[in-house]
């Protein structure tokens, strides 16, 4: 909510006369101007003595406002950006890759929904190790339930390399493990902190280096929201919706603007008629690009994944996969 006064230095036309004119219409910041009809304001400015200068000030503010939204792109530019930057990251799991036509798409938020011990964390760990190893990119893993297991990641990384030279294997293992940065996050506010810090780092970083973040995993997003569900009074209920959706938008923004694939997990709750449904309710449904339902048969390592939502694929399409030990 930057006050108009702070803009005076950069835009001398927004002088104290302009500011007091705006103040007389209860406008003190640029955000206030967004909520006002600028044509009506210009009509009021006509009646002032310094009308020309005031109208120039309004035009200046309009050009400031024009810089406050995302850039306009046409279809060709969008497509070029998507083809250049929004490639697909293999999860390391053939069944899921086949279902998703390649894997997790950069720039999109993919959600894994499933009851407990349905393999969600296993898929996350597998995807993390695969991206760190094959795509020469780094992975940021936000862990809410202390389920990140370096041993499991090591297993995934080492399973395909030949058991030949131990030292070389150890060095590559070190390098790949260094690419995965795991942070323990137990509540939504800490997650906001971590994500904002990540955004800041990404924005101030220069292009390139092989430490570019390619995959961001949040395991699980539902356990971060549930602690604030029982907020006191009606204000509490509204704020958890708002926090959850703000988190969703921040993740989508990171995904699109910084070319990262985001993978989040969510658990299931009982719904109408005993059928389980994904947690986090109706308003969360519109946040992820892709929603996948995971289920594992008891004891076996064969899991079922089906599409709940996808921008270009039919709901209900399913595949089976196995996570090797």
């Amino acid at each position, binding site marked *: 909510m930057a006050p108009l006064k702070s803009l005076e230095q950069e835009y001398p036309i927004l002088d104290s006369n302009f500011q007091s004119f705006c103040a007389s219409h209860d406008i003190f910041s640029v955000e206030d101007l967004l909520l006002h009809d600028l044509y009506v304001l210009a009509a009021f400015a006509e009646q002032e003595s310094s009308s020309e200068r005031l109208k120039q000030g309004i035009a200046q503010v309009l050009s400031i406002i024009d810089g406050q*939204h*995302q850039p306009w792109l046409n279809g*060709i530019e969008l497509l070029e950006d998507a083809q250049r930057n929004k490639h697909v990251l293999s999860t390391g799991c053939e069944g899921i890759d086949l279902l998703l036509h390649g894997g997790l798409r950069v720039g999109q938020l993919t959600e894994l929904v499933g009851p407990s011990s349905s393999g969600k964390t296993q898929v996350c760990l597998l995807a993390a190790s695969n991206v760190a190893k094959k795509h020469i990119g780094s992975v940021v893993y936000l862990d809410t339930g202390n389920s990140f297991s370096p041993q499991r990641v090591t297993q995934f990384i080492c399973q395909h390399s030949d058991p030949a030279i131990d030292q070389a294997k150890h060095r590559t293992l070190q390098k790949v493990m260094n690419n995965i940065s795991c942070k323990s996050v137990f509540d939504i506010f800490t997650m906001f902190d971590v994500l904002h810090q990540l955004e800041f780092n990404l924005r101030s970083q220069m292009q390139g280096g092989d430490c570019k973040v390619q995959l961001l995993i949040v395991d699980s997003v539902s356990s971060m929201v549930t602690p604030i569900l029982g907020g006191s009074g009606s204000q509490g209920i509204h704020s958890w919706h708002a926090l959850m959706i703000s988190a969703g938008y921040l993740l989508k923004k990171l995904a699109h603007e910084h070319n990262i694939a985001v993978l989040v997990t969510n658990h299931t709750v009982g719904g109408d008629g005993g059928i389980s449904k994904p947690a986090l309710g109706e308003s969360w449904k519109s946040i992820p690009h892709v929603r996948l339902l995971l289920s594992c048969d008891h004891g076996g390592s064969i899991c079922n994944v089906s599409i709940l939502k996808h921008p270009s694929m039919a709901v209900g399409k399913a595949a089976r996969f196995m996570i090797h030990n």
Partner: protein
Amino acid sequence: MEAKGWISGDESAKEMLGRVLSRARPFLLLPPLHRVPLRPRNVLEIVGPSPSAKTHLLIQAALTCVLPVDWNGVHYGGFDGFAIFIDLDCRFDIFRFSHLLKLRLASGSVSEIDREQNNNTIKRSSIAYDEELYTLCMRRFSYVRCYDSFEFLATLKTLHYRIQKEKAYGNCVHMLLIDSIGAFHWIDRASTCLPLRGSNRKSHSVQTVLETVVQEIRKLLLLHPMLAIATKATLFGNRAMNEAKWNLRKPDTSYSQIGGITALQLPYREYMPSAWQTFVTHRILLRPSDDHLAVSDDQNHSVYFSEWLLPSLSFLDKFIVKEAGVFLVA
């Protein structure tokens, strides 16, 4: 004499019809939006839970908007104009849009796509389309994404100049598409109203934001006649929807009469402020049904219902989403 001037007309009836009809030509959109003719300055709201193919309908409308009427002897039946897409959901998939456009161009008319697809699956690499026309149509699609309602308001306030700039090049904007209008509802609702300096200062709340949005869009539609289509996700629970499912077989029972005034019992909870509700001139409700349509061995498409709420038509259309787009099911 002056009095005579009152009697002799300004223009003949032919001239008047020519002037009015060229500007208010109704848009004939593809099914399931085909039942009601839509004109520039209409505001259509597509409401439904997630997922219910709302964005697909928007994409389909955008494609019809950017396609020309005729090109190289092939009739496409488009509106030959620009489409502006404001993405508040930030989930738009350009690959899907591009693929649908290529399929539309490859066959020339919609009915042919359906026939071809039933014979063989369309491989992405083997679609033959007019490269020049494809580029032209893609360039006519203007896209912007907004991550919060401030960015949305900033976009709307500066949209007029953008449209004017396009007009200077001879390009007309025929459609304004917004996906989806209730995206920031919870965030705006929870914005705390701190005691602000100046008692009349407008606070950032759902009410004021949407009133400003309606104001800006209304001004835009006045200056540039175009059709506005906005999707809206139903944000509240499923109980009302389940009740509505039981009422599907008897559509007239979803109306209740209160002393002569017919009050429409909406199968979803309306959360948008009245400023937006009164701004909307047409409304269509989409919802998934429990039926699935088996198109081929491995493809099982879920069937969706579409119901016109404003103007309320008492029957439902059924449609599915296939690779080539949205198609009605008999």
